[in-house]
């Protein structure tokens, strides 16, 4: 009973916050609702006993990805009026996409309850005496280690690509060289000059 209650609570809040993501007037509020949806999804993982995935969802999505979202959205200067103007024009396309997704989800739900693969997965439970974390680690790093490595390489490529696309050399940038700064001594940095009265000091004379 309690489990069902918690499930419906978490699922309800997830759906509600999902709805608020697309209907909130302020984009920052949208992102905050999205974060609430993430946290509730993590709660749903906990309800089915996948505590490792729940923690990863919170750490990776809520703790890192959503912070970057929030960071970017907060700094954007968004014109709400123009954002709203396109709604009517894109509504049919949106409804079409939603319908396609809905049909696909029903198909997936049907396959899950009846398909041979799904039954096979459920017939092979977690090995006895292994926690979730260890079971996932064993599968990921022994059975599927090459696929895992390939996924890592793809992510690395994406990261390098993003850096290459956005990086540009700018002229006239003064860079910090911490090693040089730390190695600077008073002898090298200070020059004691004794100028003649009224003669002044040449700019930069004796000073690095």
């Amino acid at each position, binding site marked *: 009973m309690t489990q069902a209650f918690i499930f419906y609570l978490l699922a309800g809040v997830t759906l509600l916050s999902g709805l608020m993501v697309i209907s909130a007037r302020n984009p920052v509020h949208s992102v905050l609702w999205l974060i609430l949806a993430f946290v509730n999804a993590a709660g749903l993982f906990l309800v089915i006993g996948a*505590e490792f995935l729940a*923690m990863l969802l*919170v750490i990776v999505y809520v*703790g890192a990805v959503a912070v970057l979202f929030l960071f970017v959205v907060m700094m954007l200067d968004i014109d709400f009026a123009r954002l709203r103007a396109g709604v009517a024009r894109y509504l049919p396309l949106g409804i079409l996409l939603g319908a396609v997704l809905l049909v696909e989800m029903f198909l997936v739900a049907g396959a899950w309850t009846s398909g041979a693969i799904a039954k096979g997965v459920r017939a092979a439970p977690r090995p006895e005496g292994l926690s*979730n974390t*260890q079971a996932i680690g064993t599968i990921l790093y022994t059975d599927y280690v090459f696929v895992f490595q390939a996924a890592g390489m793809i992510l690395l490529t994406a990261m390098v690509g993003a850096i290459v696309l956005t990086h540009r050399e700018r002229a006239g940038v003064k860079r910090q060289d911490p090693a040089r700064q730390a190695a600077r001594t008073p002898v090298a940095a200070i020059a004691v000059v004794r100028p003649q009265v009224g003669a002044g000091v040449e700019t930069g004379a004796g000073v690095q």
Partner: protein
Amino acid sequence: MVAWFQSELGTGLGWFVAHLLLVLAIALPVMAVMAMSTWVDRKVWALMQLRKGPNVVGAFGLAQPFADGIKLFLKETIIPSGASRGVFLIAPMISFVLALVAWAVIPFDAGLVLADINVGLLYLFAVSSLGVYGIIMSGWASNSRYPFLGGLRSAAQMVSYEVSIGFILICVVLYASSFNLTDIVESQKGAILGVFSMNILNPLLLPMAVMFFISALAETNRPPFDLPEAEAELVAGYQTEYSSMAFALLMLGEYMNILLMCALASILFLGGYLPPVDWAPLYLVPGIVWLFLKLLFVFFLFAWVKASVPRYRYDQLMRLGWKLFLPISLFWVALVSGWLVFTGHFSGGGA
């Protein structure tokens, strides 16, 4: 205790009441310790600067935190007219609640832990990574320049140092072969030469302990990394527009996070509730006392750093996080795991 309540009140209600009492039994002392920690903090700074510190309210100024609390409680809550009201009020609550829920998995003694879950360390990491929302939301919702800059700085800073903290935690987890905090503490029992129960004395983990301490300073926005609230440039950073209890909650959340990081450092590197030397008479002292002493020691280090180290520049902060800590901790994970495989640490059936 849970069983007794369940027999008296039925399974569901008994469980609920028992856990409610357990939560209070942890939260209230934690809050009391947190209040007193502000006093310890101020006394330590004062002594280091040859001042007296709080000494008027109560003996040795011991009642100062409560006087401050009452003063804040009696003030008016001011919400700026341009602020986003909901977010502005929720932000301090998030900051406070998150700092409090993390204590659920801290083992105060062998078996003396509210939730002995097998992903305890990940839970702590997740909660501490959520802590950034309290700050970034309060910074944005204030709708004012200084808080906004403070919020942005803090978000970037906390995300940066979380990465290296993650790798440092993995090094300790590799030694303990578990994410459970009690297991991590127990794995340190007599681990060094069969005598000392402290990970920090392990030559491979000592650099990680130092890096963890520095990252913890950055993660909790403490000096020398307190740029989000650098008073010389940002007034009070993300707290600028807050007053009364909303401000108190932000402040309490901050101190509670500091205590949490101290507890985490004690558990990961100083042996948690174990006595420092694996010697029978020392076990007569309750584990919670050892944990408290270690926590106090790390807290003293935090105060010491604040009293003696000047603030970092922002680019230096980012350089330290991304260009030094991240590569070193990543390399160290490879080194530690290589060493453990080489010495056959995992041959005993661990996964």
